[in-house]
């Protein structure tokens, strides 16, 4: 089992790195979608899974990143690559500003408030705010990604762009686990009063979680805009937020669990085309069953990421 765990990640990465060369264009597109939604689900995990805040508006930050790239590219003529920092920073700042007044709310209240934000956001997009968002049709005809004069128009190039973003996200999640900030999020989720009483400023760490989650989701938004060369409001509806929320809950706030959830939700429907119309039905049942049978998710997060030198052999053989 240990060996399996040690080799499963490298094997997974190698397969993911080779996949675009093995697949036809349709499946390449599906793989890109998988990577983008995996990044958004992982960003949701920082807020919901790690910090335990019931955020039902992750599609807002995802959409904000996508629209930032689209608006800067189509209205202001920025190259796509130059929009990336803004597509991270604007949602992150927005996350911080939104979270400031609401993070003290208890689970269910926070849920309702974030749903509200998401709905307002989509309304704003549809009503063509300042003539920038393009109304219900959105913005299309975006430029393609180019780096150092190389025009990366092919789908394979977009795939590798998404893959780099995906690896970057996993790297950040890994760093978070091994840092004071990441542990603070775990502590405040487990027991906020105890966390406060041991010296953790829970409010600022909650805002940090929102900002970080929003920034990563925004970056995924850029990849999304690049893949379709277009953005439109319906991709960032409240129902998308529900999907990300339930992927984290059903998957169980661990990287394999979340990837499994994204796979079931976004890739399986493509494999079984007949299954596509059934996906909400089946995922709905999966949610119900997993909450009853495995309340901590199909693949629960494992704690105990402590240095090896602290683990001593038990005297009682436990």
């Amino acid at each position: 089992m240990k060996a399996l765990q040690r080799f499963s990640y490298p094997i997974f990465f190698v397969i993911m790195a080779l996949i675009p060369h093995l697949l036809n264009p349709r499946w390449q597109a599906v793989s890109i979608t998988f990577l983008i939604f995996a990044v958004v689900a992982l960003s949701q995990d920082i807020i919901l899974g790690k910090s335990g805040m019931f955020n039902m508006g992750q599609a807002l930050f995802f959409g904000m990143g996508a629209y930032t790239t689209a608006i800067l590219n189509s209205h202001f003529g920025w190259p796509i690559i130059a929009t990336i920092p803004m597509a991270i920073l604007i949602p992150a700042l927005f996350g911080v500003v939104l979270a400031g007044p609401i993070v003290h709310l208890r689970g269910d209240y926070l849920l309702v408030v974030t749903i509200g934000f998401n709905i307002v956001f989509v309304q704003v997009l549809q009503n063509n705010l300042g003539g920038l968002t393009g109304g219900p049709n959105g913005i299309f005809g975006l430029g393609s990604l180019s780096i150092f004069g190389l025009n990366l128009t092919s789908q394979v190039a977009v795939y590798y762009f998404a893959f780099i973003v995906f690896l970057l996200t996993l790297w950040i999640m890994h760093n978070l686990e091994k840092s004071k900030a990441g542990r603070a999020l775990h502590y405040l989720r487990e027991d906020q009063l105890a966390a406060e009483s041991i010296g953790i400023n829970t409010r600022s760490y909650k805002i940090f979680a929102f900002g970080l989650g929003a920034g990563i989701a925004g970056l995924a938004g850029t990849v999304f805009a690049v893949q379709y060369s277009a953005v439109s409001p319906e991709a960032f509806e409240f129902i998308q937020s529900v999907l990300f929320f339930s992927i984290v809950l059903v998957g169980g706030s661990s990287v394999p669990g979340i990837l499994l959830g994204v796979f079931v939700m976004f890739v399986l429907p493509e494999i079984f085309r007949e299954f596509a119309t059934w996906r909400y039905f089946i995922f709905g049942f999966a949610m119900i069953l997993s909450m009853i049978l495995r309340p901590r998710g199909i693949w629960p997060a494992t704690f105990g990421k402590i240095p090896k030198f602290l683990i001593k052999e038990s005297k009682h053989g436990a």
Partner: protein
Amino acid sequence: MAHNELILTNVTKRFGGLTAVDALTMTVEPGQIYGVIGPNGAGKTTVFNCITGIYKSEEGSVSWRGEEIRGLTPYQIVDRGIVRTFQTIRLFSQMSVAENIMSGRHIKSTQKWWHGIIPTPGSRRDEKENWLKVGELLEFFNLEEFAAIPTASLSYGHQRRVEMARAMAVDPTLLILDEPAAGLNDKETSELLEVIFKIREQGVTVLLIEHDMDLVMKVTDYLTVLNFGKKIAEGTPDEIQKNPLVIEAYLGSEDDDDE
């Protein structure tokens, strides 16, 4: 005058019409093991909550090392060297013993929030140092074999020890223990006694609430007795045991139970 005193002056805390703590004045000297005792509902835990910032008292002052700390948040108070445990143990129950103790290193760690995204050699070193400190505490509290075990699956006595280890990880100047012996058997209680003395040897002032009278009389240097939120007596354990008011309010009623 020493500067590490905790001075409560006329601290009053009301909940609606109920006065839980009524004009309490007391002084905890550095290096003392100070006890607060009293019957159930006497307001002992409320006093602790007022000191540690969970409640803000309506009146009076809480002064620590010459600084007014009334109205500060709990984490600001921890930052000033006061740390507490809870009567009902509050551990991060799904997390391992080592991680629980590591939470106490939070305010001592030099890492900034952005080290959670991009680590630097400095933050890795800081991480390592703090884990080493956790290792020392595991040894001090004799918890080494449980390092990787989630606290929820430990016995009550071990959970108490983890909670104390977590508090000691802060390197506190004042350690506040809310009924540390509650739910412990005799053997565990005597181990606790040793631990409290060992903590004092490290120069930490200890303030505790306790119901176990044997323990209180053995361990404390000085006592305050509360009844219905008011201080009815203070003094050394010997003086308290002879005080007729205390015997009536507290010790007397316990004798009745024994008969």
